């Protein structure tokens, strides 16, 4: 390392602690000369980090959610001169969920930047969350010098290795010249086909070393195929099967939201006169307030949605994957119904159920091509039956005997009339929000479905609000989950991100308590959140407005007060402690075993998992 080169190079990061500078570090020669990151840089030549940031700018990145550290300092340094806005988070998990919220609110990848070792491992939960729900994320992790890889150097971790199972794809960027190609591929892969997170691990010698980017021509990804339109013969076969149905159900999932198939699905439902149900993540693909929409199906879905699925003669999955939360006991699921599956991911076919017909393609394009081939079905009797179920088994809750989460969410739905983006955390409040806050458009309902990640809701709302600043954005979180990521109150406060965070405080890990009450003889174990802070004071400690709802009579006034506030606000609803979510299909039970109201007799332990 000659002195003459250091003047062009950025200041080397100060070692963070002893081990980084111990003599065990191989001499520069052994590390491959310039590979230590301070190789000769010609005047005017840029550094890897600068090229990386430029490529991110070219990809249209507005925000980076991140937290720095030794191995990432060069990249943070390059951000100083960039128009990309950096949001400093308080925990890397928060960064991933913010980026995820941003991504789900827009369809564009959210970008995360963290340091090596623990910074990178703190993103693993966020990667899983995004991977399970097909959200496009670009996670850039600083890495130690390449020469130190595998040497247990300070903050070295095999980050690509740790994350293989939770990414759509990943890169270890070994050569700065590849930066433009890797960034371009990463963005393309993250957001096309079935979207997902892509990780780029950037060794420090690449980021702080001189960089001569290699021109990128056409994308060269021979192993990556993005299905587009469906095969005409499949779509024709689909139309023929539909024509024979008298009791059809359109079962709409996240894929329909992602491909923006909502309007086409609505048109299909209207043309066929077929009822719609949606999954937790499919909320909003089609308007849940439409007369043909029966709401959410599955474990905590509406009774009428589940009854329709139980009795249908044809079920058409549109970007939905027959999750165990949906099917319950598989052997008993839609045994006599014709099952059809439209998906952009062929690996979803035959994974859970064996459909009678599969159509590979983008949901929107497939439905649009299907539309001219179908005509009105004879479904009047079927729709009348669905209407009867809807009347007989409405979603309901008690308005007396203390404040109910459902009441608060019901009013939130009424006051906002769907003109809002709601992000929900995980637990009872999530299910109540899904039931009562009816979603009218895609990308207005954001929650962690596949992973069920507590702590997701609040940071996701920050990301969504940044992405769509003109929208009213509500986070609905539990007292348990909020405490996993509430440190991002600082992020919201500093950047004046005007999210409304509704904390449903039942002083319990409520969803688990419900299971223990129902299936474990109410032997409560590890669910009491004694020791909760005063969430209003907590918000105020961050300089964030705090409001409290104690009684049903306060609901509208406080919600309106929160809506009118210009900055971020936390509204704590102090709800009854021991309410349960119904309807409920015990895990692993057939849909017909749905418990519509609180049971009076003892229930068996569920067979299904979680």
């Amino acid at each position, binding site marked *: 390392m000659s002195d003459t080169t250091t003047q062009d190079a950025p200041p080397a990061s100060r070692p963070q602690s002893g081990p980084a500078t111990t003599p065990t570090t191989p001499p520069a020669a052994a590390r491959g000369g310039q590979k230590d990151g301070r190789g000769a840089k010609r005047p005017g030549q840029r550094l890897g980090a600068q090229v990386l940031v430029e490529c991110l700018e070219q990809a249209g990145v507005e925000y980076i959610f991140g937290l720095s550290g030794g191995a990432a300092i060069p990249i943070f340094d390059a951000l100083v001169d960039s128009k990309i806005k950096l949001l400093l988070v308080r925990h890397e998990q928060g960064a991933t969920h913010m980026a995820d919220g941003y991504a789900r609110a827009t369809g564009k990848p959210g970008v995360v930047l963290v340091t090596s070792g623990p910074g990178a491992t703190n993103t693993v939960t966020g990667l899983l969350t995004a991977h399970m729900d097909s959200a496009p994320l670009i996670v850039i992790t600083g890495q130690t010098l390449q020469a130190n890889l595998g040497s247990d150097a300070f903050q070295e971790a095999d980050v*690509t*290795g740790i994350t*293989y*199972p939770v990414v*759509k*794809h*990943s890169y*270890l960027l*070994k050569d700065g010249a590849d930066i433009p190609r890797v960034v371009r591929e990463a963005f393309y*892969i993250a957001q096309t086909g079935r979207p997902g997170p892509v990780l780029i691990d950037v060794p420090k010698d690449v980021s702080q070393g001189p960089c001569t980017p290699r021109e990128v021509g056409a994308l060269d*990804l*021979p*192993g*990556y195929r993005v299905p587009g339109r469906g095969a005409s013969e499949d779509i024709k076969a689909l139309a023929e099967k539909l024509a024979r149905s008298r009791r059809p159900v359109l079962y709409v999932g996240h894929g329909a939201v992602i491909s923006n198939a909502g309007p086409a699905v609505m048109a299909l439902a209207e043309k066929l006169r077929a009822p719609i149900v949606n999954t937790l993540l499919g909320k909003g693909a089609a308007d849940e307030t439409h007369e043909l929409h029966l709401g959410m199906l599955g474990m905590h879905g509406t009774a009428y949605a589940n009854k329709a699925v139980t009795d249908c003669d044809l079920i058409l999955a549109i970007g939905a994957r027959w999750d165990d939360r949906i099917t319950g006991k598989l052997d008993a699921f839609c045994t006599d119904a014709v099952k059809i599956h439209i998906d952009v*991911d*062929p*690996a979803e*076919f*035959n*994974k859970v159920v064996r459909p009678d017909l599969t159509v590979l393609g983008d949901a929107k394009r497939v439905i649009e091509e299907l539309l001219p081939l179908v005509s009105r079905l004879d479904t009047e009797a079927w729709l009348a039956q669905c209407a009867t179920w809807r009347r007989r088994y409405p979603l309901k809750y008690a308005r007396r005997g203390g404040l109910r989460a459902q009441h608060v969410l019901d009013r939130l739905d009424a006051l906002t009339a769907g003109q809002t983006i709601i992000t929900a955390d995980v637990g009872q409040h999530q299910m109540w929000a899904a039931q009562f806050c009816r979603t009218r458009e895609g990308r207005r309902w954001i929650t962690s479905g596949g992973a069920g990640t507590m702590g997701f809701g609040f940071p996701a709302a920050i990301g969504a609000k940044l992405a769509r600043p003109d929208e009213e954005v509500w986070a609905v979180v539990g007292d348990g989950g909020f405490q996993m990521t509430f440190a991002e109150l600082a992020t919201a406060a500093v950047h004046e991100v005007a999210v409304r965070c509704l904390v449903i405080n039942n002083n319990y890990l409520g969803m688990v308590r419900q299971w223990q009450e129902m299936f474990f003889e109410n032997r409560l174990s590890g669910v009491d959140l004694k020791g909760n802070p005063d969430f209003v004071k907590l918000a105020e400690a961050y300089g964030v407005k705090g409001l409290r709802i104690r009684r049903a009579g306060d609901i509208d006034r406080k919600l309106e007060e929160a809506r009118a506030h210009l900055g971020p606000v936390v509204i704590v609803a102090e709800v009854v402690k021991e309410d349960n979510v119904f309807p409920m299909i015990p895990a692993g039970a057939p849909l017909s075993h749905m418990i519509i109201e609180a049971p009076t007799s003892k229930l068996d332990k569920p067979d299904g998992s979680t």
Partner: protein
Amino acid sequence: MAAPEPAATVAAPGDAATNRGDLHTISLLVSDRPGVLVRVALVFARRGYNIESLVVSPGARGGFSRMTITCSGDPATLSQIIKALGKLVDVVQATDHTEDRAHETEIALVKIASTLDQRTAILQIAEHYSAKVVDYGSESLILRAVGASDKLDTFIELLRPFGIVELVRSGKILMARGLLET
């Protein structure tokens, strides 16, 4: 000791695959990138599938490698595995060859510690299987046999009574016949 008669079912070298139990054979064309082997292996590991043999070699085109994998496990999972492999960005093609008549072959090196009086019997077996003696020592022999995997299985079983000290098999490789792509 007389050489046991080789089983009549034994295929001649180069014969089509006669599948051994629940073994499946998959051929992958992959981009030659670091980490691709781990990504492939994880698809199997996550589903509790056992990889029996795995051969990686350069493909005909630069920048691509060919992987031939034999594995065991339930057939329903296998089709999911093939689809999951096909989804990997670095996997260009994933094909199940379990049922087809691809040409397959394998090499086995077998080291036998043998006294001189056993040699005739061993060499008779070797001759029957067109195996070559590649190392002839006073206390040991190394035989090299080439052929379909199940043929090698039988060959090795016949040698077992003589005391196999070491066994190294290359793992199965295969190629689709005619102008079909592997």
